[in-house]
């Protein structure tokens, strides 16, 4: 009879809701930036290949969303495409969450145009600023307004949306203040969409992550950025980002770990594995690895912490 099945159903649901997960397998929870996600995913996959009894899960709530969970102690590790902000740090302090941070890779930003664009081969930071600053809205509309020998045709701009760390970094590095940007461009959080947009329009001009350029070299053309210090045009590639000649358009990626998590053996092993392997693995997913010196700084940082804080929870 219907009533009986209804009551049975409600009882079983409440039973499920009450049942507790008592002592599952050791697990590590990671969340945060969708930019850093591929790196953490790669590390997690390789780590679990040698440690099959540990469960590592990775979410993609965004750097801000991740920090929110991080400061509440809900996750062990936050993937961050930017350093922690002061408000987020205060939230951690308010909840007694102490943490460590490690740099794990670099992400380069490629400036791209359509392959049949013959005139735009290099660009200066100052020209980029004139093109993208807020006052350019409705006023800088054609190529020749940037450089007089470029054609008198309309520029079509493509770029990441305001939620993207790439956007924050680009605006800070080029315009001077984060989020200061003209508002009349085609925005998307999905870099693949931007690739498509630029590949379809002769007058397109866009910027996005290096990995997306590297995977679509047949469809789009990179523009060399004139390094402000050396005044030479540099094309974006893994090598040029790594040796810092491609500047200023590269940004560091981080992971943040709570000290509480680091009391567990599996997390310590994981972070060690991460730092040991992030050079190789970050490049395998299209990012740029840290230089040898930078890597040894992170290794030392981890070693110092591990020594000062021995394991508290036995496995």
């Amino acid at each position, binding site marked *: 009879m219907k009533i009986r099945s209804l009551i049975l159903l409600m009882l079983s649901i409440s039973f499920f809701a009450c049942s507790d997960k008592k002592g599952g397998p050791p697990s590590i929870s990671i969340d945060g930036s969708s930019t850093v996600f591929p790196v953490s995913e790669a590390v997690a996959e390789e780590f679990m290949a040698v440690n099959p009894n540990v469960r590592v899960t990775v979410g993609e709530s*965004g750097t*801000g*969303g991740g920090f929110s969970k991080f400061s509440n102690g809900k996750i062990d590790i936050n993937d961050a495409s930017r350093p922690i902000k002061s408000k987020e740090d205060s939230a951690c302090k308010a909840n007694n969450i102490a943490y460590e941070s490690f740099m794990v890779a670099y992400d380069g930003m490629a400036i791209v145009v359509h392959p049949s664009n013959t005139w735009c081969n290099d660009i200066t930071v100052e020209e980029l600023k004139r093109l993208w600053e*807020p006052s350019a809205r409705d006023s800088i509309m054609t190529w020749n307004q940037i450089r007089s020998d470029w054609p008198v045709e309309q520029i079509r701009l493509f770029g990441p949306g305001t*939620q*993207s760390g790439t956007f924050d970094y680009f605006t800070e590095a080029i315009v001077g*203040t984060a989020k200061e940007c003209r*508002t009349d461009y*085609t925005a*998307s959080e999905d870099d693949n969409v931007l690739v498509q947009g630029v590949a379809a329009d002769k007058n397109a001009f866009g910027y996005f992550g290096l990995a997306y350029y590297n995977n679509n070299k047949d469809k789009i053309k990179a523009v060399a950025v004139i390094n402000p210090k050396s005044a030479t045009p540099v094309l974006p590639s893994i090598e040029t980002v790594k040796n810092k000649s491609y500047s200023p358009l590269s940004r560091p990626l981080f992971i943040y770990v709570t000290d509480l998590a680091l009391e567990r053996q599996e997390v310590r092993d994981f972070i060690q594995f991460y730092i040991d392997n992030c050079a190789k693995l970050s490049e395998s997913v299209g990012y740029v690895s840290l230089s040898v010196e930078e890597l040894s700084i992170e290794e030392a940082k981890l070693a110092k912490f591990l020594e000062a804080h021995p394991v508290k929870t036995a496995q």
Partner: protein
Amino acid sequence: MRRKEKFIEALLALCAGISVFTTVGILYVLVSESYGFFATVPLSEFLTDDQWTPLFADQHFGVMPLVAGTLLTTVIAIALALPVGLTIAIYLNEYAHPKLRKSVKPALEVLAAIPTVVYGYFALTVVTPFLQQIFPELAGFSALSAGLVMGVMIIPIISSLSEDALFAVPKSLREASYGMGATPFQTSFKVLVPAASSGIIVSVILAISRAVGETMIVAIAAGQQPNLTANPFVPIETITTYIVQVSTGDVERGSLEYKTIFAAGITLFIFTFILNNISFWIKKKFLQKYE
């Protein structure tokens, strides 16, 4: 016996009450967070500023561009889905062979089952280029593309539910109409549709609500450029796209920028509320019950 009846009635009422719990919950979440927002940004600015740029350095908090985006995509979607959906319902009910009805109706319902993420990418990668051949000035993101695909998605809501409503009209009415020499066309429009109007109108309301609340299709294909415009060829941003953008993004929880989600959300909620009240008023005027 009486006790059992009362018990059953109470149990059913409890279930209905869950919907109240949902509304209370949603209102609580929306109001408590937007309270903080409106303490900082005056309501007049919220309603009259013509730009929405809370995530840029130069912040504007005018919600009208988002409302315009939502309205534009919804109108396009309904303009497609209502005539097509209703026509299909009438056709399947009165004209088509019963076997055809049995196979076409579920086939169309599949349209409602396709994940909206997939629709979004379909709109972006197939529909937009196709439309660009007809309208060369169409931008890569547009209300037109997203609106049309949304319309396709909600066709089954209107066609299936309306068809069910038409199906439920007593045969006696149909037979009386044919007995007087009416064509299927006349029977459908002068007898059946008015008789089933309650169900049909409800299906349209559900479809409109669905379109207004749709998130992924517009997030992927309509763009992220808040634009106070009625032009379907340019990128716009809807309220729902904005909410998704911010809540899965990099904004700090609790900041003013984060609270804009709730301000936008409550606008949508009020908007839907007004829409529904109008629809209910219309429905009451046309409701007919046949024995």
